[in-house]
C-alpha cells in the first residue's frame, strides 16, 4: 500500500477525531455526551496497543496468560460501587484533578509526596507511551511494506508527525480551562468513539480470521494442534504459573485504579455516580468481547507464519498475506485508535500532574502570587501545553532509543509494576487513618528503587539483547517467577512494609491527621461545612479576595465569594476569614494549581496555627457526638412516625368500632322499643273502665309476655357482651357430649311435640370432650329452637349428627324448613342479623341467638358455620376440640 494513501487515511481519521471532540465540546450538556455509555467506553482506554496487538503476541508464545491482565479489572469492577464511589466523592468535593493530587491531599497536601507520585507516574507512563508510538510505527511500516524503521531520521519519520498531531490535539482540547478538575467532554467523547472503533475492528478481524480464513474455531484448533509447542500453549503451567497469574491479576487490579489515564477517565471525567452502575457490568463485557478472538488469531498466526515475524502483529499480517488490504487498514485504524486514546488521556493526566504537582509548587507559585489573573491563567495553560509536548517528545525519544527490541507486553508489565507502587498509600490511605505522609514517601521510594534494581536497570543495560534474556536473574533469584512477578512481589512487599512500619512508628502532623479522617470517614464529613475543622489561624477576607482575584479573575472571585457568603449566611462586611473560607478558597485554587500550591498560597496570606492533637480530637469527638445525636434524633423521629401510624390505625379501629357500636345501639334501641310500645299501648287502653273483663285479662297477659320478652332481650344483650369481652369464664370439664345433646333435645321436646316435628339423633357412639355444659346446652337449645321455629308444623323433621374428625368433634343440626337465603349464610351470626333490606323485619327472636352461639363455640376454640351446600332447610355445624 502506498505511503501517501496511508498518510491521507491517518490524517482524515485524525480530522474526524478533532470533529468529534469539537462537536462534543460545543454540546457539553447534551445527553449524547453525558451518559453512562460514553463513561464506560472511555474506561476502555485501558485497552491500548498492548491489548490490541500485544495479547496476540503473548497468546502465540505463552497461551492464555494474556488473560490475567483483564481478570484484575473484572475482579475490581464490582468493588467500584463502593471504592470508586468513595474516591469520586472525595475528588469532586476537593476538586481533585489527578491521582498525584489525590494522594498528596490525603497525606495533608504534602508537596513532596505529590511530586514523588508524579515522578512515579512519569516513569510508568512514558515508556508506555513510547510503546504505543512503537506500535504505530511498526504497523505503519508493515502496511506500506517497508522495514526501514527510523533510519531515515526524525524529519522523515511519520511516527514523529503523528506524535506531534496527537500533542496538538491534547493541547487544544485538554487545556481549554485552567481548572484541571473540570471535565473535558471533547476528549472523553473522542476516546469513547475510539474505544468503540477499536473493539468493532478487532471483532471484525477476529471473525475474518476465524470464519473466513478458517472454518470456525474447531478448524483452527485442529490445525493449531499440529504446530510444534501447542500442548504448552493450551494448558496452565502448574503452581509456578499460578503465582505468575496471581501477581499479574494483582498488577492489573491496581492498574485499573492507579494508572493516571484510568484515574482521569474514571474519576475526573465522571459526571454522575450512577454511571458506575452501568459501568460495572458493561466494562467487563467490553473486556470479554475484546478477548474472545485473541487466541484464535494467535493460533492462526502460528499456523501461517513460521519465520521470524513479530507475533504481536498477526492480526495485521494475516490479511496482508492474503492480500486483503482493506482488512489490514481496518486493523491498523483500530490499533491507531487504541494508541491515540491512550496517549491523549495519559499526556493530559500527566501534564496536569507535572504542572500542578511538580512545577508550580516548586518556584512558580511565588511568582504567580503577584501576577495578574490573565497572565496566571495563561501561564498555567502554557505550562500544561509545554508539558504535553515535552511528554510526547520524551516518549518519542525513548521509543527511538530503547524500545526497538522490547515487546509490547514486557514494557506494559513494567509500567504496571511501577504504577503499582502507589497502591499501599492509595488503598490503605482510604481505609486506615494512621497512614502518614512520611510513610507514603518512604514506601513509594523503596518500592521504586527495588523496581529500578530488578527490572528497569537490567532492561536499560540490555537494550540490545534479545527479549527475555535481559532480566534473567531477579531479586533472591526465584527461578519460578517471571522477572515482572519477581519485581512486583519484592517491590510491593518492601513498599508495604515500609509504609506500615513508618506509619505505626511516626505520628503525622495535624493536617495529615485531619485529611486522613476526612478521606477514611468521608461520608461523615460530606455535610460538614467546607470540612472546616482542618484549619485554624488568622486571615483577612481582603487578602484572600486579592489572592483569588489573581488566579480566578475578578468576576469569578466575586461570584464564588457571593455564593460562599450566601451559603453560610456571612455578611459581606466581615473582615476576618474563618476556617470555612480558607478551605473554600483552597478548594477553588486546587482545581487550577493543585493542592500543594493552593495550600502554600493560602499560607502566604494567613497566619496558620497548628491545630493541636487535643483540639482535633475534640472536634472529631464533637462531630461524632453530633452524629450520634443526629442518629438518636433520627431514631426518635422514626419511632414517633411508627407511633403516629399506630395511633392512626388504632383510631381507625376505634372509629369503626364506634360505628359498629352505634349500629348495635341503634338495633338494641329498636328491639327494646317494640315490647315497650306494646306495653305502653296496652296500659293506655286498660285505663278504659268499660273494657270487658276477658279482654282486660288478655291485655294484662300481653303486658306480662312483653315484659318477659324485654327481660330475655336484656339478658341476651348482657350475655353477648360478656362473651364478646371474654369476661364470661367457661367452665371446661370433660363430659359426654351425646348426653348433653340428649338433655337439650329433651328440653325442646314439648314444643316439638306440639308442632308435631320429629327430632332424630343420627349417631350411636358416645363422644367425650372438654366443654362448659351449661353453655353447650344454650348453644344446642338455640339451634334446636331456630330449627323448630323455621319448620312448618306437621311436616318438619330435625336431624342431629355427631362425629369426630381427627382431634375435633363435629355436631350438625339440620332441619327441612324454609332455609337461609343464599347470600346471607355469612351474616346470620352477626348481632341483630337482619336481611339485606334493613326495613324487612327478621323472624322473631333470631337477633341474638346465633351471635351468642358463635361466641360460645369460639370460646371453646371451635368453629360454627352454616352449611351452604344444603338444598332444603338449614344446617348449622359446629366443632369443638376433643381435648383441651
Amino acid at each position: 500500500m502506498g505511503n501517501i494513501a496511508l498518510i491521507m487515511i491517518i490524517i482524515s481519521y485524525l480530522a474526524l477525531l478533532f470533529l468529534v471532540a469539537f462537536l462534543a465540546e460545543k454540546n457539553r450538556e447534551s445527553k449524547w455526551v453525558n451518559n453512562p455509555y460514553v463513561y464506560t467506553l472511555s474506561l476502555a482506554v485501558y485497552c491500548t496497543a498492548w491489548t490490541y496487538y500485544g495479547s496476540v503476541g503473548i497468546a502465540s508464545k505463552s497461551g492464555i496468560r494474556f488473560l490475567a491482565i483483564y481478570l484484575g479489572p473484572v475482579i475490581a469492577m464490582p468493588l467500584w460501587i463502593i471504592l470508586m464511589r468513595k474516591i469520586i466523592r472525595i475528588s469532586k468535593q476537593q476538586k481533585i484533578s489527578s491521582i498525584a493530587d489525590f494522594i498528596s491531599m490525603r497525606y495533608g497536601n504534602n508537596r513532596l509526596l505529590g511530586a514523588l507520585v508524579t515522578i512515579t507516574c512519569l516513569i510508568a507512563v512514558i515508556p508506555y507511551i513510547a510503546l504505543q508510538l512503537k506500535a504505530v510505527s511498526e504497523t505503519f511500516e508493515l502496511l506500506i511494506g517497508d522495514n526501514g524503521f527510523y533510519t531515515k531520521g526524525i524529519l522523515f519519520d511519520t511516527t514523529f508527525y503523528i506524535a506531534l498531531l496527537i500533542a496538538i490535539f491534547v493541547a487544544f482540547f485538554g487545556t481549554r480551562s485552567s481548572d484541571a478538575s473540570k471535565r473535558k467532554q471533547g476528549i472523553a467523547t473522542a476516546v469513547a468513539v475510539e474505544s468503540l472503533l477499536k473493539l468493532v475492528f478487532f471483532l471484525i478481524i477476529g471473525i475474518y480470521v476465524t470464519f473466513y480464513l478458517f472454518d470456525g474455531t474447531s478448524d483452527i484448533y485442529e490445525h493449531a494442534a499440529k504446530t510444534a509447542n501447542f500442548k504448552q500453549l493450551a494448558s496452565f503451567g502448574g503452581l509456578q504459573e499460578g503465582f505468575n497469574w496471581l501477581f499479574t491479576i494483582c498488577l492489573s487490579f491496581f492498574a485499573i485504579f492507579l494508572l493516571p489515564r484510568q484515574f482521569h477517565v474514571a474519576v475526573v471525567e465522571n459526571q454522575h455516580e450512577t454511571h458506575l452502575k452501568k459501568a460495572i457490568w458493561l466494562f467487563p463485557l467490553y473486556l470479554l468481547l475484546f478477548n474472545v478472538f485473541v487466541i484464535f488469531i494467535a493460533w492462526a498466526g502460528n499456523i501461517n507464519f513460521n519465520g521470524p515475524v513479530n507475533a504481536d502483529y498477526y492480526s495485521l499480517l494475516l490479511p496482508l498475506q492474503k492480500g486483503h488490504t482493506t482488512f489490514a487498514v481496518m486493523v491498523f485504524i483500530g490499533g491507531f485508535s487504541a494508541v491515540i486514546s491512550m496517549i491523549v488521556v495519559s499526556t493530559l493526566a500527566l501534564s496536569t500532574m507535572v504542572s500542578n504537582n511538580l512545577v508550580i509548587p516548586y518556584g512558580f507559585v511565588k511568582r504567580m502570587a503577584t501576577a495578574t489573573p490573565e497572565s496566571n491563567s495563561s501561564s498555567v495553560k502554557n505550562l500544561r501545553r509545554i508539558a504535553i509536548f515535552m511528554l510526547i517528545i520524551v516518549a518519542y525519544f525513548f521509543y527511538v532509543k530503547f524500545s526497538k527490541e522490547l515487546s509490547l507486553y514486557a514494557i506494559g508489565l513494567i509500567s504496571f509494576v511501577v504504577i503499582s507502587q502507589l497502591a499501599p498509600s492509595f488503598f490503605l490511605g482510604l481505609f486506615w487513618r494512621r497512614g502518614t505522609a512520611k510513610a507514603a514517601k518512604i514506601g513509594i521510594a523503596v518500592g521504586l528503587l527495588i523496581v529500578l534494581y530488578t527490572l528497569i536497570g537490567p532492561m536499560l543495560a540490555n537494550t540490545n539483547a534479545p527479549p527475555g534474556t535481559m532480566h534473567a536473574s531477579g531479586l533472591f533469584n526465584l527461578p519460578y517467577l517471571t522477572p515482572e512477578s519477581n519485581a512486583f512481589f519484592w517491590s510491593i512487599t518492601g513498599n508495604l512494609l515500609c509504609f506500615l512500619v513508618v506509619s505505626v512508628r511516626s505520628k503525622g502532623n495535624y493536617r495529615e491527621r485531619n485529611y486522613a479522617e476526612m478521606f477514611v470517614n468521608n461520608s461523615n464529613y460530606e455535610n460538614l461545612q467546607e470540612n472546616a475543622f482542618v484549619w485554624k489561624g488568622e486571615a483577612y477576607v481582603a487578602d484572600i479576595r486579592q489572592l483569588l482575584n489573581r488566579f480566578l479573575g475578578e468576576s469569578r472571585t466575586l461570584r464564588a465569594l457571593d455564593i460562599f457568603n450566601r451559603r453560610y449566611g456571612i455578611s459581606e462586611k466581615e473582615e476576618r476569614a474563618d476556617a470555612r473560607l480558607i478551605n473554600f478558597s483552597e478548594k477553588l485554587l486546587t482545581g487550577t494549581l493543585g493542592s500543594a500550591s493552593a495550600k502554600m498560597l493560602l499560607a502566604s496570606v494567613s497566619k496558620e496555627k497548628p491545630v493541636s492533637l487535643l483540639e482535633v480530637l475534640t472536634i472529631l469527638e464533637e462531630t461524632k457526638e453530633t452524629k450520634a445525636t443526629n442518629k438518636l434524633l433520627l431514631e426518635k423521629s422514626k419511632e414517633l412516625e411508627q407511633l403516629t401510624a399506630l395511633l392512626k390505625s388504632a383510631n381507625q379501629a376505634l372509629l369503626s368500632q364506634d360505628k359498629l357500636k352505634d349500629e348495635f345501639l341503634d338495633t338494641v334501641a329498636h328491639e327494646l322499643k317494640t315490647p315497650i310500645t306494646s306495653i305502653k299501648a296496652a296500659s293506655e287502653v286498660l285505663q278504659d273502665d268499660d273494657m270487658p273483663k276477658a279482654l282486660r285479662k288478655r291485655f294484662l297477659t300481653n303486658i306480662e309476655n312483653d315484659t318477659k320478652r324485654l327481660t330475655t332481650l336484656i339478658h341476651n344483650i348482657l350475655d353477648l357482651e360478656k362473651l364478646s369481652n371474654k369476661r364470661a369464664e367457661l367452665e371446661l370439664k370433660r363430659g359426654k357430649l351425646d348426653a348433653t345433646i340428649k338433655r337439650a333435645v329433651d328440653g325442646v321436646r314439648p314444643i316439638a311435640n306440639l308442632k308435631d316435628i320429629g327430632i332424630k339423633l343420627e349417631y350411636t357412639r358416645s363422644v367425650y370432650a372438654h366443654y362448659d355444659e351449661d353453655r353447650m346446652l344454650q348453644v344446642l337449645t338455640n339451634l334446636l329452637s331456630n330449627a323448630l321455629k323455621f319448620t312448618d308444623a306437621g311436616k318438619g323433621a330435625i336431624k342431629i349428627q355427631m362425629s369426630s374428625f381427627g382431634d375435633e368433634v363435629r355436631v350438625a343440626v339440620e332441619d327441612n324448613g324454609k332455609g337461609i337465603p343464599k347470600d346471607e349464610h355469612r351474616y346470620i351470626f352477626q348481632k341483630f342479623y337482619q336481611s339485606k333490606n334493613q326495613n324487612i323485619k327478621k323472624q322473631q327472636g333470631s337477633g341474638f341467638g346465633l351471635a351468642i352461639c358463635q361466641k360460645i363455640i369460639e370460646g371453646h376454640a371451635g368453629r360454627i358455620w352454616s352449611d351452604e351446600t344444603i338444598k332444603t332447610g338449614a344446617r348449622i355445624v359446629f366443632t369443638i376440640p376433643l381435648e383441651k
Partner: protein
Amino acid sequence: MSEKKILIVDDEPNILMSLEYAFKKKAFQVYVARDGTEALEIADEYFPDVVLLDIMMPHLDGYETLKRLRANKKLSHTKVVFLSAKSKEADLKKGLELGVDSYETKPFSIKRIIAKVEDLIS
C-alpha cells in the same frame, strides 16, 4: 258524619290489639293487617280514610307499602301516618319524600295518635 275507616298495619299483634280497641272505641271502622301485602289488599278493597303504617315489617316494608298505596288512584283521599321505632331524621325525610301525611315514633301515645288522625280527616 259517616263512619270513618282506618287501616292499622303492624307485625306486632299486641300493638295491633291495643290500637284496634282504642279506635273502635272512637267509632272507627277498623281494619288490621300484619304486613304490607295484606295491607294493600285490604286498602284496595275498602279504601280507608287513614292508614297507620309500621315501617319495619316482614316481606314488604312500610316505605314500599306507602309507595304502592300512593300509586292507587282509588286511594287519593287516604291519609297515611307512619308508626315507627325509627326516629332518625333521615328516616323521617324519606317518609316525607314518599308523601306520608304524618309521623309518630314508638313508643307512642294512643291519645295523641287519635287526636292526630281526627285532625287529618276533619
